[in-house]
């Protein structure tokens, strides 16, 4: 950001190309990570529900 030296059109196109390459990959990774995240959230919810059910059953056993 401190660099204010003029950059040639060709260099500017080259750095843009390189950034596009990087951006496309980071975008892909973000989408993959978001998908994994959704899967993990569902898994957490399912496990939590299972534990709640078990807890309720145990309570019944103790009370009954």
């Amino acid at each position, binding site marked *: 950001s401190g*660099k204010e030296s003029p950059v*040639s059109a060709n260099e500017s196109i080259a750095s843009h190309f390189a950034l596009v390459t990087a951006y496309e990959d980071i975008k892909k990774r973000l989408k993959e990570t978001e998908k994994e995240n959704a899967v993990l959230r569902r898994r957490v919810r399912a496990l939590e529900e299972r534990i709640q059910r078990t807890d309720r059953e145990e309570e019944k056993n103790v009370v009954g």
Partner: protein
Amino acid sequence: VVSSPNSTVQASSFAHVIFQNVAKMYLPNAPLECHYTLTPYIKPHSKDWVGIFKVGWSTARDYYTFLWSPVPDNYVEGTSVNRVLIFQGYYLPNDDGEFYQFCYVSHLGEIRGASTPFQFRAASPTDDLLM
């Protein structure tokens, strides 16, 4: 400063070198293998080099570190050649959370290839990024 406007010819030349098997993470302070393919469209020169750049760089002078890319022995023009360079750990970035990429730069300073980005991350037992 402003160069000739043949940007369309130039554009395709950005993929004349293809980086292979680029990881998402590398260990800092460990030797880093950089694999790449010289396609038949590039005529390698002994003063071509491969740099590690922070993503978002502006000019070829912004490299973090670099290695010369020697012309392959018995190189035959117009063929495809796989190459490996090994960056020594001492010269690599630390675990700084930034993204870097390899770029192949010709002896004339032209970018002829750019890799997908990677980070330097110290190994950690709590890190399990695999599902």
